[in-house]
């Protein structure tokens, strides 16, 4: 599962690159887990390392 941490500044780079349009940002990124397919593109593209992938 993709988790956004407190480090998020809200720059929305993750939203711009998400292939499933599963991210909205207004001050902080929010993941729509119904649309998210855990591709981790957001994890890799986050400039401040604020997004993690957790095995559940």
């Amino acid at each position, binding site marked *: 599962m993709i988790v956004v941490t407190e480090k998020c*500044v*809200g*720059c929305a780079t993750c*939203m*711009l690159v998400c292939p499933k349009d599963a991210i909205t940002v207004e*001050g902080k990124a929010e993941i729509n887990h119904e649309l998210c397919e855990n591709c981790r593109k957001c994890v890799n593209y986050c*400039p*401040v390392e604020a997004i993690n992938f957790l095995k559940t």
Partner: protein
Amino acid sequence: MRIGVIGAGLGGLLSASLLSEMGYRVEVFEKLPFLGGRFTNFNYRGYEISTGALHMIPHGSRGPLARMLKKAGAKVEIVDSKPEGTALYNGEEVKISRKRIPLRSRIAFLAHCVKNWFKEVKLSELEKKLDDFSARYLRAFLGWSFSITPEQTTLSKIYPVYRSILELGGPGVPVGGCRSVIEALVEVIRSNDCEINRQKVSVIRKEGYGFSVHLENRTAKRFDVVISDIGHEETARLSGLKSYAKLEPSRGIKYSIAVKQSFIDHTGVLFTLNTRRISGMNQVTNADPNLGKQNFLMAHQPMLTTNVRFEISEGLKDLKELLKGYDYEILAVQSFSDGWPVNRALAGSDIGCKTPVNGLYVVGDGAKGHDIEVDGIALGVEEVVEEIRKTL
């Protein structure tokens, strides 16, 4: 002579392209899977939305960045804004010219310059002495250009920029947006057989006359000179130096908006003077229609409090009033602070390109020359390239 460049933002890539053109062997390292840092764009729902900067170059085709792109052989077309800017004041769009500034405000400005030149007097003191239009314009201009308020700065800090605007003129839009500048630089670097690697640097160690740069994949590379484009603080951390610089970053919020009808009819900035937060907007599709499938507006505001959500709600209220009667959609709300700020140093407080270590330089945001945004970055890079040319 081998030069390592850490970080593929505008400063890093501009340095690498100029030095590779001069015949140095340059290798660039970037931790992220994309190049350009806060100066590039992604296509999002048909609009070229930037990762940070507005699609603008402060002095357009006449400024330091344009000059250095030419020197590097990077082909970028820049559409200079005409007019440079207008202002939305009490519901009317007005031209900005000397005539708009009443004589008494011009005298107040001169008196402020003479009296306070050597003192750290906040610009908000000057603002109090200006007429309503001039005071609001000052605030909007600072918010748009520097993401700061008159309370946060002094005349001596922004004077060099004020001078360069008088001398070099106002902004321009790169055709293709920020990314076209980055792509042109990458082409130059690659054509000179220099590599750009996706690697995260974990340690920069001074060894004898050179450096060893340790990568996260546990390999290390030797360089004679290292140029860092990751800011002074992070550079100090990676090289084990005591933090020699404490910079205060500026924060801001950018809105990307699709509008059905045209909202601005020129290629310059529309400064918004009667708002809570929004300082200005530009309709970038006027300069390059390929930046969006409909009219594409970018609006910017500084952050007056540390509460991001509150700041955004104030900005959105402004946009609702400004765009009343227009069919629009807010595509993206992007806030910039901390590790991904508007500027790593408040306007006029960049600390230059040198570090306590010989042969280790910093370029990019936080190490700008006497100008703003990417034109300031270009001046910083120019200094580093000149230093390297002189010593090696």
